[in-house]
């Protein structure tokens, strides 16, 4: 597990999931699984979030919403696709209204498999995301320093 220097906050958005993965994400927050022990807090505000957790695929209606949420999040940001639907479209891939996985719309860093994804694997995904976040953050800071120095 990556060494954590800060507590990344998490935003959950339900794309077009069947609720299966959705509910499992919520279950991660409750006493039995409790992701808060990793310093991860669930927030409802994209401006407060570092990690975006998306369940379900992208359809014509929610595409703009997902894009907007992603652009509202401050840099650096990490996206986790939870469940088969969010990874590829899953069982609904052939539906007329499904464009496919989340990566058809925004860049995805971590893919969590499963239909429904189990809370253990969701937590695993979140912990990995925290690692990715740390890396992105360090890169972001050093780039910024460089930019300041050259200007």
């Amino acid at each position, binding site marked *: 597990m990556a060494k954590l220097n800060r507590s990344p906050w998490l935003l959950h958005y339900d794309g*077009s999931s069947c*609720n299966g993965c959705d509910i499992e994400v919520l279950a991660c927050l409750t006493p039995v699984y409790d992701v808060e022990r990793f310093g991860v807090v669930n927030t409802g505000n994209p401006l407060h979030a570092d990690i975006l957790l998306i369940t379900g695929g992208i359809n014509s209606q929610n595409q703009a919403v997902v894009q907007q949420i992603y652009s509202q999040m401050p840099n650096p940001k990490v996206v986790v696709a939870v469940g088969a639907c969010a990874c590829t479209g899953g069982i609904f891939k052939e539906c007329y*209204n499904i464009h496919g996985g989340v990566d058809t719309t925004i860049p995805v860093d971590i893919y969590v498999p499963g239909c429904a994804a189990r809370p253990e694997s969701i937590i695993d995904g979140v912990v990995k995301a925290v690692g990715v976040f740390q890396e992105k953050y360090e890169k972001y800071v050093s780039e910024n320093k460089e930019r300041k120095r050259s200007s």
Partner: protein
Amino acid sequence: MAKQTVVPFGPQHPVLPEPIHLDLVLEDETVVEAVPSIGYVHRGLEKLVEKKDFNEMVYVAERICGICSFMHGMGYCEAVEHIMHVDVPARAKYLRTLWCEMSRLHSHLLWLGLLADAFGFESLFMQSWRMREKILDMFEASTGGRVIFSVNRIGGVLKDIPPEMLRDFLKRFDDMGADLRRLTRTFLDDYSVNERLRDVGFLTKEQALSLGAVGPMLRASGVCYDVRKTGYAAYGDLEVEPVVSTIGDSYARCQVRIGELFQSLDLIRQVGEKMPTGPIAVPVKGNPEGEFFMRCEQPRGEAVYYVRANGTKNLDRMRVRTPTFANIPAMLQTLKGSQLADVPLLILTIDPCISCTER
């Protein structure tokens, strides 16, 4: 007249686990009208019948919604079984009933938790979900899945519950009764919960009937109607008495759902006593031909499955009318005249399930 403002609510909103969008027309703090717009979770899975055969559709039906997943699968299976004149073995029917009631338990506990979260009672939310995990454990032990089980098939069920496991389950459910009573006492008697729920979001009996409300929403307004009375699965052999309240406000809806928790425990006990032995599935040959309407009572109310088959392995049409869809007009009615601060709570009192509404 005060000036009117329109406040957009959703689709991404802290209190909603699922996306729904409402335009709230406000006069000061009072909602005069709520205009819903939906479609954020629409997948178009009914049309998948053209690509997947009628056996594969069982798994698609289960994924209409991950909360009532078992009931969706069962409703679809019973509809197809009816067309094909399949005689489902008694044990399969009882197992289905058991899993149905377990689904109702976990769904109502989930709702209680979300409700507590909506009015800011965080520890009550955690406690409800802690209880819910116990039921998920039993689901996992008996089916292998926590939320999506895939144990239904046309002609019966795929997994059996051995007698020792069933005995163990019944004992766990017995123990759960006391815990549930302690938990629900807070919902029913606590001062702050009462303050939030009482006299909020009235729906009269006439309104409930004319707007076509279903499930706890309907029963909380004093209408005694429960589709389990029609006796699908093994409900015909069991005693089901609908839980009804006549008050019609948010408190009544909470009361009805809590009553149903104990009703489910009672039904599970009855299932345990009467569980027959024998096979759990029969082989099914050929393709379905004909059409059928199947109704079943989900935690959120009456769901309708319409299936039309043409003798090939792909169905002509599958249509699902889900309970939340039927409850949206009633929800809009309760929102009219409410305070802005109560809106999240009122949306939650219908126990919205958007993914099944939009499919």
